[in-house]
C-alpha cells in the first residue's frame, strides 16, 4: 500500500509498504532514516522513539498505515540544516558535552524523549527526568551521564 506521511517537515508518499509493518520499519528500511533504532520491537526499550503529531511514541508499535496523513519527527529532524555540531539541537549538544553517549544505540530515543520533556517542562526535577525517561533503556552508561545531559540541556536552554 501507499502511505502519505510528512517526515521531518517533508511530505512523502511511500509505496510498497506492507500492511503489517511498523512506522519504524517504514522510516528505517523504506525512507533511509536509520536514526531511530530498532532494538526490541516490543515497546520495551524506547530506542525507536519519534514524535507522531508532536507526541513521543515507540515507532515500532505504530502501524505504518496509522501514520497516514500525520507528521513524524525523528532524531534526524531535530538537527535542522546541514550536518555539523553547530546545527544540533541543544539537547543533542548536551548529550555530546556530558558524555552521555557510549555505543549510542539508545541515544536517538533518549534525545527525542528528553526533547519532549524539556519542551513541556523546561526545568524538570530529577524525579521528573527519571519518570520521563523510564521507558528508555541504556546498557552502557548507567544513566548518570544521561541525567547530567538533560540537566545541562535544561540549564543551557534557560540561559539562551
Amino acid at each position, binding site marked *: *500500500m501507499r502511505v502519505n506521511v510528512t517526515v521531518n517537515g517533508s511530505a512523502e508518499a511511500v509505496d510498497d509498504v*506492507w*500492511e*503489517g509493518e*511498523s512506522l519504524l520499519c517504514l522510516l528505517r528500511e523504506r525512507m533511509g532514516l536509520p536514526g531511530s533504532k530498532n532494538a526490541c*520491537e*516490543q*515497546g*520495551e526499550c*524506547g530506542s525507536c*522513539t519519534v514524535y507522531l503529531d508532536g*507526541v*513521543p*511514541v*515507540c515507532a*515500532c*508499535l*505504530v*502501524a505504518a*498505515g*496509522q501514520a*497516514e*496523513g500525520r507528521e513524524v519527527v525523528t532524531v534526524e529532524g531535530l538537527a535542522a540544516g546541514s550536518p555539523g555540531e553547530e546545527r544540533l539541537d541543544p539537547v543533542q549538544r548536551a548529550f555530546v558535552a556530558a558524555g552521555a553517549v557510549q555505543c549510542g544505540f539508545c541515544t536517538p530515543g533518549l534525545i527525542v*524523549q528528553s526533547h519532549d520533556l524539556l519542551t513541556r517542562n523546561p526545568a524538570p526535577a530529577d524525579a521528573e527526568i527519571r*519518570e*520521563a525517561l*523510564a*521507558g*528508555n533503556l541504556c546498557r552502557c552508561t548507567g544513566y548518570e551521564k544521561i541525567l547530567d545531559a538533560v540537566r545541562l540541556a535544561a540549564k543551557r536552554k534557560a540561559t539562551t
Partner: protein
Amino acid sequence: MDFLRPPTWQDALAAKAQRPGARPVQGGTDVMVEINFGVDRPDALLDLSGIPALAEWDRADGRLRVGAGVPYARLITELGGRLPGLAQASRTVGSPQIRNRGTVGGNLGAASPAGDAHPPLLAGDAVIEAESAARGVRMIPVIEFFTGVKKNALRPDELIRAFWTAPASGPQYFSKIGTRNAMVIAVCSFALALHPGERRVGTGIGSAAPTPRRATEAETFLSRELDWDGRRPLGDAAVRRFGELVRDAASPIDDVRGTGGYRRHALAVMARRTLTWAWDDHRAEAPGRRAS
C-alpha cells in the same frame, strides 16, 4: 493482509460486520507486538486511530462516557480529578511512550487478567458500550465483560465505542506490585473505591485469577462495617478481615512473575493499605465536599 482505515465510526462498524476477522488496532501497543513477533497475522488490520470521536470523552446523565481511543496520558491529565483510581492505574502503565498511545479500549480488547485499567473499572462499576452494525449498542457491565484469560464478551462484529462510569463520589485507590516503578506487568494489583452516597464499597483484583474480578464478599463486609456518617476510625480487626476476604477472593497461579502464595499475601497487604488510605481521606474530608 489488508489495512482498513474507516474515517467514521459507522464505517468502522460496517467494516467489522463485513470482515469479522479484521483485527481492530487503536494504540497498537498490544497488536503491533504480536505482529512484529509473528504471533498474529490477521487478514486485515482495522485502524480505529483515525476516528476522532473515539478519542473524545464527555458527560451524560451525571456519568462520564470515555471514548475507547482516549490514551492513558490524556486520561491522567484530563480526567485524573474525576477518576482518580483509573488515573492512578494509568500512571503505572508501561512508560510515557506507551501511555501516549495505549488506551483503555485496547486494554479491554486485550482483556488480559493483568490489564491495569480493569481493577478500577470494576471498583467503579463501569459499563462497556459495545456496538455492532446489525444490533446497535449493547451496554455490558464490566463485571460481565471478562469471560476468560484474554477473552471478553465482544461478539465478532462488535467494537468497543466507550466505557461509562460515574465520577468519583469518594476516595479511590489503586495499588500494583511489580519489580520496578515503570514498565512492569502487574504481579498482582488491587483497586478500591468508596461510594459514600450509596454506603457501598467497590473493589477490583488484577492478575490473580483467570480474569480480573471483584472481591464481592469483602465489599459486602466492608460496606456494613464502615461508619459512613460518624466516620469513626476503623478497627484493626476490620482492616485485617477485609484483607483476608480480598485475599480469599483471588485464585492466583504460580508463574514467572510470582507464586500464587505471594500474590495472595500481597493482595491482603494492598487491600489493607488502600483501605487505610481511603478511610483516612474520607474522615479528613468535610461531608459533601466531593459531591459532584
